[in-house]
C-alpha cells in the first residue's frame, strides 16, 4: 500500500484491551469469544459510537476455538453490532490482529466501510484436544453404523492405544525448528549472551511495572469481571514481575537447548489470554462524528522470510518497507513498539536494523535502516513482561502506542511484529 498525501487517511479513534493473563490462570474458564465480546462491548460503549455506523468487524485469532471458527461474527453479534454488519476472522499467527487492523484500513481506504472495529482475542486456556487420526476414522465409522454391532465393532478393532486425546499444538512445520529453537539459533548467530537476554527481559519487566505504577495502562485496560462470580475487577496484567532481577532470571534453566542454551522462560514472552480491539475510521467520518483521533495510519508493510534461516528476523524487512512507504526514516520515529517474543529476537532485530552489512546483503540498500534509540523503544515494557496473547498482541501494541503517542510531542510511531512462519509486519502511525 502506498499512500500519497492527497488520499484519505484512516484514523484510530480508540483502542481497548482486557488485562492480559498468563494462560491457565484467571481466564481459565473463559473462551476467546468471551474475551472478545468484553473488548468490543466496552469499545462501543466508551467511544459512544452508534453501532449502526460500524461497517465491519475484523478479528484476529491464532488458535480458534472449534466452536467459533469465525469468532469475529460471534463477537459482533454478542456485542451489539447490528446483524447486517459483516464480520470476518483473519489468521496470520502472531500478526493476526495487526492483519485485522490493516484489513480494516484497506476496507476504509477502498470505501467499503467508513468505520471498522478490528482486534483479536486469544484464550489458550480454551485450547482444543484432538483424537488421533485413527481414532477419528473409527469414530466416524462407528457413527455411520446402522446397528449396535456396526457401531461398536470399529472401536474394538482399533486396539487400546490411540484412544487418548492429543493436545492440538502448532508446529513450525517448514522451519525444521521451533520458534524457541530459532531464538537459540539467532542468539548464537548474533552473539547475544544469556546476560544480555536476561537484561532485556529485566528491562521489559521494570518498564512495564513502572508504566503500571504511573497509570499508563489505565487508558487502555478494561476493568474486567470474570463469570460466574464477577468477584473483583481485573485491572492488571498478571505476568508483570516487579521483583524480577538478574538473579531470579539467571536461575532459570534454558528451555530449548538444555546444555548450551541461553533462551529461558524468563527471557521469552509467556503465553497469555486476552483480547484487544481498536476503532478505525476514515478521517472524514471521524470529523463528521466529532471524534478527535488518537493517531492516523501512515503506512504499513508485510514481509516474509525463509522460516528455516530467518524465522524471527522478518520485522526488519517490514520496518524498512513501511518506513520507505511513509517516506520517513527511523530517526523520525518518536516511539517504537515491537513485539517481544524473545529477548534474542528483539536484540537481533535491533542489531540488524543498524547493520550496514545486513542492509546491503539482505535488504539490498546501501545504508543501514537506522539506529534504534532505546529511550524510545518499548517504553512501557513489552510482551516478555505483559505476556503474549497471540491473536490479541498486535492490537495491544497499536493500542499502547496510540495512547503513548497522545501523551508526547513526537509525530511518528512504529509498530513491528514477527510472526510464526517467518512473517513480519510493521505499521507507521502519525499524529494529526
Amino acid at each position, binding site marked *: 500500500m502506498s499512500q500519497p498525501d492527497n488520499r484519505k487517511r484512516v484514523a484510530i479513534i480508540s483502542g481497548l484491551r482486557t488485562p492480559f493473563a498468563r494462560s491457565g490462570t484467571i481466564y481459565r474458564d473463559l473462551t476467546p469469544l468471551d474475551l472478545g465480546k468484553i473488548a468490543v*462491548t466496552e469499545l462501543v460503549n466508551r467511544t459512544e459510537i452508534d453501532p449502526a455506523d460500524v461497517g465491519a468487524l475484523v478479528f484476529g485469532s491464532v488458535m480458534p476455538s472449534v466452536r467459533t471458527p469465525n469468532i469475529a461474527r460471534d463477537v459482533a453479534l454478542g456485542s451489539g453490532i447490528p446483524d447486517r454488519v459483516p464480520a470476518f476472522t483473519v489468521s496470520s499467527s502472531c500478526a493476526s490482529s495487526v492483519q485485522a487492523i490493516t484489513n480494516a484500513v484497506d476496507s476504509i481506504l477502498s470505501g467499503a466501510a467508513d468505520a471498522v472495529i478490528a482486534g483479536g482475542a486469544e484464550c489458550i486456556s480454551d485450547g482444543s484436544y484432538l483424537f488421533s487420526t485413527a481414532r477419528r476414522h473409527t469414530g466416524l465409522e462407528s457413527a455411520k453404523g446402522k446397528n449396535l454391532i456396526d457401531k461398536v465393532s470399529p472401536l474394538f478393532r482399533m486396539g487400546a492405544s490411540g484412544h487418548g486425546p492429543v493436545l492440538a499444538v502448532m508446529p513450525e512445520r517448514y522451519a525444521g525448528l521451533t520458534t524457541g529453537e530459532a531464538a537459540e539459533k539467532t542468539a548464537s548467530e548474533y552473539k547475544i549472551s544469556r546476560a544480555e537476554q536476561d537484561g532485556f527481559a529485566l528491562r521489559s519487566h521494570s518498564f512495564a511495572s513502572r508504566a503500571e505504577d504511573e497509570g499508563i495502562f489505565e487508558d487502555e485496560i478494561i476493568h474486567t469481571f470474570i463469570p460466574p462470580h*464477577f468477584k473483583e475487577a481485573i485491572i492488571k496484567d498478571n505476568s508483570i514481575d516487579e521483583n524480577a532481577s538478574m538473579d531470579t532470571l539467571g536461575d532459570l534453566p534454558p528451555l530449548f537447548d538444555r546444555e548450551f542454551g541461553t533462551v529461558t522462560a524468563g527471557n521469552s514472552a509467556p503465553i497469555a489470554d486476552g483480547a484487544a480491539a481498536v476503532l478505525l475510521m476514515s478521517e472524514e467520518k471521524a470529523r463528521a462524528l466529532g471524534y478527535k483521533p488518537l493517531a492516523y495510519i501512515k503506512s504499513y508493510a508485510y514481509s516474509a522470510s525463509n522460516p528455516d534461516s530467518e524465522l524471527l528476523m522478518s520485522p526488519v524487512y517490514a520496518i524498512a518497507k513501511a518506513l520507505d512507504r511513509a517516506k520517513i526514516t527511523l530517526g523520525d520515529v518518536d516511539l517504537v513498539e515491537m513485539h517481544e517474543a524473545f529477548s534474542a529476537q528483539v536484540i537481533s532485530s535491533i542489531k540488524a536494523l543498524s547493520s550496514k552489512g545486513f542492509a546491503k546483503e539482505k535488504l539490498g540498500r546501501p545504508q543501514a535502516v537506522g539506529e534504534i534509540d532505546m529511550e524510545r523503544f518499548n517504553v512501557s515494557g513489552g510482551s516478555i513482561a505483559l505476556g503474549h496473547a497471540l491473536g490479541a498482541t498486535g492490537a495491544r501494541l497499536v493500542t499502547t502506542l496510540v495512547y503513548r503517542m497522545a501523551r508526547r510531542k513526537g509525530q511518528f510511531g512504529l509498530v513491528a511484529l514477527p510472526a510464526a512462519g517467518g512473517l513480519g509486519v510493521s505499521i507507521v502511525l502519525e499524529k494529526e
Partner: protein
Amino acid sequence: MTTKEREQTTGSLSYTVDSDGIATLVVHTPGSVVNRLRHEDYLAMEELLDKIDKDLDMLESDDEIRAVVIVSDKDWSFISGADAGEYLEFTLADEGRSYSLRAQEVSERIEASRAPFVAAVNGACLGVGLELIIACKYRIGSNGRGVELGLNQLENGLIPCAGGMPRLARLVGTKETIDMILTGEPLDAEYARQAGLLDEIVPPELLRETARKRALELSAKELKPRRFRFGGVANALLKENPVSRKMSFDKAKKDIRENGGLHLTASRMAVEALEIGVASFNRGLHVESVYFGELAVTSYAKQLIRTAVAIDGVRNDSRFSKTAGKAAKKPSKLAVAGGEPFGPGIACLAAESGIRVRLKAKDDATVGKSLKECYDYFMGKASGREEDSIHAERKFDLISAASDYSGFRRADIIIESAGEDPEVKRRILTDVEALPGGNFVYVSNSYAVPVSNISGGSKNPAKVIGMRMSGSVSDSDLIEISIGEGTSPETVSETFELVKLLGRTPLVVKDKAGSYLTRVELAYFAEALQLLGEGVGAQDIEDAMVQFGFPEGPLSAMDDVGLDVVKQGAVAIYGHSPEYAKPRAMLDQMVSEGKTGVRSGTGFYRYHRDEKRLDRSVSRLLSLHEDDTDGISQEYIQDRLVLALVNEAMSCLEEEVIESARDGDVGAVLGLGFPAYRGGPFRYVDTVGTGDVLKKLHNLSVRYGTRYSPPVSLKNTAVGGGRFYED
C-alpha cells in the same frame, strides 16, 4: 395452498378450502392484542364456539372437505383461552352450564368428525384452546419459542368446561393432568411432545405445510397416529391402574385440603370432575358442566374475572398506548444508573425483552455484584441443555456495566434507580444531562421521592418521568409511572410502552406528595405498626392479613421493601405529623439496629437460608406488650388495616392521583398484593357497601385520629347509596 375455491368468514374464524379438499381454519380475532407468552387478552370464547359450531355444521354438510387444519394468524398466540368477561353476564348457574355443554359438544364433534382435524399450534394454547386441540385427531407444534400448552382456568376461579380434562387424562395420564390443572403451568412444545400431548414438532416455517400434509394422509387413512394413550406404555401400566389412580386423586385432594391456598373450591371441583370423568367419561362431562355453571356465578370467580378485565384495560389504556395492538418499537438501548437493589433487576427485565442495557454502578465492587446478579438471573433459569445456556448467554450479553457514564449517550431511555436521596438523584440527572448529544427519556425510579422534586433542576423536564417498582423487580407484575410537573404526553407514552415491553403492567398516576402505591402501602404499613404499638401480636397481625387474602402479612411485606426505604417514605410523606410519631419511632429504632429487612437478613423476621421466622427480639426492642390484647378479633385487625389502606386509596382518587377506581384497584391487586378475588380497595368498598364503610371509618376516626377521616367524595357517594362501579 394453491387454489382458493371458497371462503367463509365468521368473526374470529375463517377458512379456505383447497383443491384437495383440505380446509384451513384460521383463528384471527380481529383487533385483539395477544401478547407473546401472555394471555391477558382472551379471545371471545362463546363467539369462537358458536362459530366453530356453525362452521362445523357447514363443513359437515359439505362433502368436499376431507380434513380441517386449524391455524392461527398470530405469531404468539394460537388460542389463548376464553374471553372470561362474558361469564360476568351469567346470573344463573344454568347459563354457565349450558355454555359448558355447548363447548363440550363442539369438542365432541371435532373428535368424532368424519373429516379429521389437525391443529397446527404456533403460540400460546391455553384453557379452552387446549381443550379444543385435544379433541383433534393430530396435533403439531412449532419449535419456535412461545409455544405453551396449559389449562389455566383455575386462575379465574373456574374449571375447564369443554371436556378437556378427561380427554387430557387419556392422552398424558391422570397424574400429569391433575398437575396441569392445579398448577396451571403450561408445557413447552418439547415437553408436550414427550408427554404425548403433541404428535410432532416442526420448525415454524414448516408448520402449516406439515399440518396440511398430515391432514391429507389422515383423510386418506395413510397415517394412523401412533399414540400410546396415558402418556406411554410404561406410564399406563404403572400409573393407570385403579390403585395408582386412586392414589393420585387422594394425594391431590389431600394437598388441596392441607395447603388450602387460592381457588380452593375450584381446585376441589376440578379434581372431583376429573375423577368421575376418568371413571365414566359422560358422567364426568355432566359433573364438569354443573360445577362450571356453579363456579361461574360465584362472586369469587366474577371478581377474579373483573380484575383480569380491569388489568387488561389498564395495560391497553388508549390514552397512553399508541401502538394500537402492535408491538412497540424496542428502544435500541437502555441505560440504568444505580446498582443494587433495583439496577440489576431492571437490566435483567430489559435484557429478557431483548433490549440492550448499559448499567452504571458506583464502583467496581458494585459493578461486579450487579453483573453477578444478572448472570445468576439468566443462568439460574437455564437448564443443563446447551441450547438453553447459549440462549441465556445471549440475553446476558445484552447487559454491560461500568462505574462511569460511558455508554449512556446512546441510550433512548435512562432509568435512574439510585435510592431515596433526592440530592443524589438530582445530581445524577444533572450529570447525565451534561453528557454531550444525549436525547433520552429520563425515568427516576423511587419509592417515595416525587418526580417533580427531581425534575425541577432538569434542562428538559418534559422528558423526565417517575417510576416505582414494587418489592423485588422480578416479582412485581406492576410498574407505576408517575407524571411529574412538565412531563410531556409523549414521554408518558414512551415509558408506558417500555413497561409493557418489560412484560409488566404499567399504571399511570400523577405524583402528588408520593405516588399512589407508595401512599396506600405506607398507610397500610403505618397502621400495622400502630397495631403493634397498641400491643397486638405480630403473628396475629400477619395471620389476619393472610386470612384476608394478602400473599403475606404487612410486617413481612415491609421486610421485603426494606425498613430503611419504608422509613424514608414515611418521613417524606408524613413529615412530623404527630399521628404517625409512633410508627416513625419504631422504624427509626429498627433501622438504627440494622434491622432493615430481607436484604440485611433481619427485620421483623429473621432470615436464615430459605427459612424465615418472626424475630422475638423485636418486641423487646420496641418495648411492646403483647399481653394487653387478648380478645382482639381477626376481623378487627383486618378492619383497621384494610380501611386505612382503602381510605388512602379513596383520598388518592379524590386528589386525582389516580384517574379512576379501576386504576386504583388494579394497582392495589398487582402492586400491593391486595387479594384479586376481592377486586381491589374500591371493589371492596362496593362489596361491603359505601354506607357501612363510611360508618366504620367515622367510628375509627373518632377513636384513632384523622387518618381514618373519610374523604368528602365518599360521604357524597354513600348518601345517594352510590357505588364506585356500576356493575
